[in-house]
């Protein structure tokens, strides 16, 4: 079974620029999560999808962050415009069921904002 795929693995941008991350979850997993992990901290949930609908985006900074999962499979997370404090690893995870405690994480995208 293929794991969660993410791209790019690394991205360096200047502040105020835009960036997008892509995630392909494990086949058959209806639930998809985006997490932000700042260095030295645990992952923080940004948004959760069930199929193509948003279940929880309470911690997503909606003035600059957006995410979509149009066909209920792949997902993109966008930041526009980026700030220095957005430097972090952005992790995508998927699970078979809604709010499953067994989530499968991708390798993440390391974003550096200069």
């Amino acid at each position, binding site marked *: 079974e293929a794991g*969660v795929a993410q791209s790019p693995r690394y991205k360096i941008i200047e502040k105020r620029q835009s960036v997008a991350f892509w995630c392909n979850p494990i086949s058959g997993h209806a639930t998809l999560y985006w997490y932000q992990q700042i260095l030295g901290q645990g992952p923080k949930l940004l948004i959760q999808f069930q199929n193509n609908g948003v279940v929880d985006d309470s911690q997503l900074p909606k003035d600059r962050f957006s995410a979509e999962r149009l066909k209920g499979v792949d997902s993109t997370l966008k930041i526009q415009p980026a700030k220095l404090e957005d430097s972090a690893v952005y*992790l995508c995870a998927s699970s078979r069921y809604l709010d499953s*405690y067994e*989530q499968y994480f991708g390798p993440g995208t390391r974003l550096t904002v200069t």
Partner: protein
Amino acid sequence: LAKTTQPISMDSYEGQEVNITCSHNNIATNDYITWYQQFPSQGPRFIIQGYKTKVTNEVASLFIPADRKSSTLSLPRVSLSDTAVYYCLTPNNTDKLIFGTGTRLQVFP
């Protein structure tokens, strides 16, 4: 905020058993306790989950006393490759897993 408390770091040597204890005093009746492992430059990986008493799999054992206010992750005979951050998690009031800062385990030769 994470509802769990665990040591910030632990050191061990190869071949030893490592026990990481997590405190979750306010765990709800229906909550499970879940542990994840994270290696550098990788996403977290699910290790084990339990509700009460003892759970064992090929990676670890999880011990949960009757009052369920704490749990202990046991890693038998650790190797250098077990060096990682270990997270103890319980769900929040909307059933979401909240990651704290975890326990950084360093295994020495």
